[in-house]
């Protein structure tokens, strides 16, 4: 009996002992006093994957929290606006000069042409080059102390847009280590400076007083990464954070109306049909699917009202899309339900969806019913995205419920059209090979004039929709949760900015 009680005592003593280790190991003081003195507490959704390296997913964190800046930025219309460069000039087809503003890095050194050239060179030579540079060869040279000359191998009309990409944020020379890693801690130029990054869970940012655009109104930011949407919404409702991004549809209705803010997103959900093999190699069947599918019913059900019915590939978050939209003509005639049944006898439609975005599997189930009404026999395959990507690119499915950002890091729509719908596109899940589409996309890519480029993009959109390779369903909206006493949060459709110098707690 003595042994028993001794065992119990030992077990009970172990608990507090390890609890002690956990408090010192992870917590650290300051979390309870968060929000004190007007510091912003923000819950972000995607935990850092590469210690906030600008060459990864994490780049958007740097721009969202105004830590790093590029030479240019995007304005509301999606045009290039001055950032670290005050002005720029295209001297010939392939050469641009950028005039730098007087600014300092957060480590106290000056932003010089030399430093900018170094930063761009590092991006160019990065082990995995940022996507924004993958289709361009860029050479940077310092013309004088505050002028940078950029040369591209082939004419690149969207270069200023490219430079606004968060992946091309300019960091101080100190940020670039010999082994190729890049650390934005204390090396950016923005109004906020990262002082500490704790694994994948927390980061502390302080105001950078030497910011060229004036002192930020908030003294600092405490970031926590909360991957689970319900937990993020809970943190906001429980008062643990002031701003919580990307509140899932199921949770949005639980927030107070004054705290939920919807932003049209550049993300379009669509049904991508495999034109290369299987059922949908047949155009009338694709047309039948297009006619059967109604994205409108998804808006109020699956998306709980936080979406717009799709007009085309580009939604209301792309301001010029509605203005320049071209009517789709020359589509194939849809097969009737009886014809579909006859044509597909003994063959099932393999409908894929991935679980990473909770709405997609739900949408797939609704679409299944719509397609079955049109005469198809449907079988779903729902998995985690990385588990099915190889199969998708190999064309093992007939249709995919796909959520896609239509303005990629260039901020330019051509990149998306080229990678997803042209014959040699790297992400051509639809397996589309259509000479007219290729021609239309190429024409848009070569156009230098912004307004004309937009018109050509919309002409390419019409060409793509004509093939029925893709059936747009909805344009998503993002719900940002913002506590009542927070002012000046940026609601950016491109999800590139969130906090700037004016964001504050009243």
């Amino acid at each position, binding site marked *: 009996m003595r*042994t*028993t009680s001794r*065992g119990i005592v030992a*077990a009970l003593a172990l*608990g507090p002992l*390890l*609890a002690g*280790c*956990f408090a010192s*190991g*992870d*917590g650290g003081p300051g*979390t*309870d006093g968060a929000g004190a003195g007007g510091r912003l507490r923000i819950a972000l959704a995607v935990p850092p*994957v*590469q210690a906030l390296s600008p060459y*990864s*997913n994490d780049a958007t964190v740097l721009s969202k929290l105004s830590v790093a800046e590029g030479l240019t930025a995007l304005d509301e219309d999606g045009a290039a606006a001055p950032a670290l460069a005050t002005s720029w000039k295209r001297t010939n087809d392939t050469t641009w000069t950028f005039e730098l503003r007087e600014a300092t890095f957060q480590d106290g050194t000056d932003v010089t042409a030399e430093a900018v050239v170094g930063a761009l060179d590092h991006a160019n030579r990065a*082990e*995995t080059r940022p*996507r924004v540079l*993958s289709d361009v060869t860029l050479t940077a040279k310092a013309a004088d102390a505050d002028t940078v000359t950029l040369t591209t191998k082939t004419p690149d009309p969207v270069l200023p847009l490219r430079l606004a990409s968060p992946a091309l944020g300019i960091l101080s020379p100190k940020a670039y280590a010999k082994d190729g890693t890049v650390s934005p801690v204390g090396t950016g130029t923005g109004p906020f400076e990262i002082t500490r990054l704790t*694994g*994948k*869970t927390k980061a502390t940012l302080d105001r950078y007083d030497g910011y060229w655009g004036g002192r930020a109104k908030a003294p600092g930011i405490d970031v*926590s990464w*909360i991957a*689970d949407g*319900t*937990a993020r919404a*809970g*943190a906001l409702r*429980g008062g*643990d954070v002031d701003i919580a991004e990307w509140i*899932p549809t*199921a*949770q949005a209705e*639980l927030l107070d109306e004054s705290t939920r803010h919807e932003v049209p997103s550049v993300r379009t959900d669509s049904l991508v049909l495999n034109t290369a093999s299987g059922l949908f190699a047949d155009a009338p069947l694709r047309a039948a699917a297009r006619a059967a599918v109604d994205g409108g019913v998804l808006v109020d*059900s*699956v998306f709980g009202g936080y979406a717009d019915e799709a007009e085309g590939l580009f939604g209301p978050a792309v301001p010029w899309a509605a203005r320049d939209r071209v009517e789709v003509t020359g589509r194939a005639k849809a097969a009737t339900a009886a014809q579909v049944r006859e044509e597909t006898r003994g063959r099932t439609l393999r409908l894929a969806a991935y*679980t990473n975005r909770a709405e997609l*599997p*739900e949408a*797939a*189930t*609704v679409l299944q*019913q719509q397609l079955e009404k049109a005469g198809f026999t449907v079988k*779903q*395959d*729902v*998995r*985690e*995205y*990385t*588990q*099915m*990507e*190889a199969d998708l690119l190999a064309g093992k499915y007939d249709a995919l419920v796909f959520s896609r950002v239509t303005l990629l890091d260039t901020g330019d729509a051509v990149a998306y059209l080229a990678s997803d719908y042209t014959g040699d596109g*790297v*992400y051509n899940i639809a397996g589309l090979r259509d000479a007219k589409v290729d021609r239309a996309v190429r024409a848009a890519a070569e156009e230098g004039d912004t307004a004309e480029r937009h018109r050509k993009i919309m002409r390419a959109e019409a060409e793509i929709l004509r093939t029925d390779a893709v059936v747009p369903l909805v344009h998503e909206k993002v719900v940002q949760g913002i506590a009542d006493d927070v002012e000046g949060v940026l609601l950016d459709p491109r999800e590139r900015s969130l906090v700037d110098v004016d964001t504050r707690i009243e």
Partner: protein
Amino acid sequence: MSVTPDGARGLPTRWRAVAGRAVAATALLTAVAFLPWLSGTDPALTVLRARSAEQDPTPAQLAAVRERLGLDEGPFVHLGRWLEGLGRGDAGTSWVSGEPVLPQVTTAFAVSLTLMLGALAVTVAVAALVSARTLYLGSRQRLLRGRAGAGAAVLAALPKFLLASLLATVCGVWLGWFPSQGWTGPASMVLPALALGVPSGAMIGGLLDQSLPAAFHESWARTWRAYGLPPGRIARTALRRALSGVLPQLLPTVVGLVGGAVAVEKIFNIPGLGRLALEAAVAQDLPPLQTATLALVLLGVGAGLAIQALRRALLGPALRDGALPALHAPALPRPRSLPWITGCCALALLTLVVAGLLRDPLHVDTAARLLPPSPDHPLGTDPLGRDLLARLGHGALRTASVALAVTAVSALLGLLIGAASQAGAGLTEVVSTLPAVLAGLLVTAVTGPSVWGAACAVCLVGWTPYAAQTSALLEQERASGHLLASVSFGAGPGYLLRHHLLPAVLPALLRNALLRLPTTVLVLASLGFLGLGEQPPTPEWGRLLSENQPYAELAPWTVLAPAAALALFAVLTVAGTATGPRRSR
């Protein structure tokens, strides 16, 4: 994964156990090391995807990653390099982030271990509550009837992630008693520990509650009572006696939570080992995955040894000297409530299934989204406007039969491996801390997505509780006097198995398996994201729970109905098989 090396047969038992552990651990780590090559998915692609989700990897980028990681060198070179580094205290760098792995894994491990200890405390408390009545009555010789164990079955059937959501919402967000998320201080441990500990405690308590009457029924208890020893003393000794058979269950039930509490870690945003291992596995980021697996293996072996030592301490020399009579349940009459409980559960489930089967489980009606229960939809509708009653009814048969089949296979495997004694013990320790998701990934890598994959994966890890139980009970039974007597009378192994060993193990094993049925249903559904198991929209109870979980607060009926159905099913099976002669003797 064969674990009885031929050469080990002649070795002393201790060495056989060590060999069992070594072989099992080696096999497991090798399997993990081969994962990226088995899966047929290019690790360069998954690594790039993890780094940057919305980008389209160009062939040049993929080639750069492949070269940087040395993927062409094959698994053996990588495994060798990793093992060599381990010797120097360096577990390599993550393929995705390029950061050293060891600090990440140790931090996550410490977090998960702390959480597990919290859950252990809750487990002990709940188990004590569940078995308190039997302990009290038994020590006073007033244990006149058996217990149905319905309460324990209901608690054990509570899905952990649902309990976690509920606690986070009610105690965290609404009442503000504890943090609803995060890992900042001891206060953030309370809710997750409760969510993990309550079902585990009910499971352990249910087993303890079942074996206690047998301990009170032994002759020493009668003698002690005759001597007038206080009931407290008798209760303590009976507890020691019964605990030694139940303690090994802590390994798969509670210690396994270190790597297997992914859902709860997500809900409470806890940076634990389960999430780390899952993320690494999905990205095919080998160094952290291997290191996390190794940590889990070491934990399993360490905890296994600790539990073994604790059992030895509890039973003392009796076990070693073969002076232990085995625990055999007394013939207590069934409790009066038993037929009522069984009848009500059966009736309720039958009504549910029949009423559900008459309705269409697949009809989507987006206009009828999340309707509360009404005459049209007696249990309400789900987010797509499908009738919940119909989905429950149509899912019942598939859910129950798959879960029962998986449990039967697991129990049989556990019985066989547990009976393999020492070598089996090593394998049990190594596998019992392995998360089912990892088994799922290994199965997907070999077979690809399939309907039977989920069942296979769960069987692959699900046998450990039964093996632990079998080996603990057999150890006592082998030490008992009547076995020796039978042997000396010339009984062969077959006779011993049929007349002594199996009767000693089976009732407890059955109770254990039935208490674990609901968990099996949930684990099966949790592998869906790998493409294992039935694909949607097939109705299945585990899926109903997991797909409706985000709506738990907005439309509670969407999760309450399946959770209640699962509890009914659990109570029915547990109460329906409660042993003992009929009431009218």
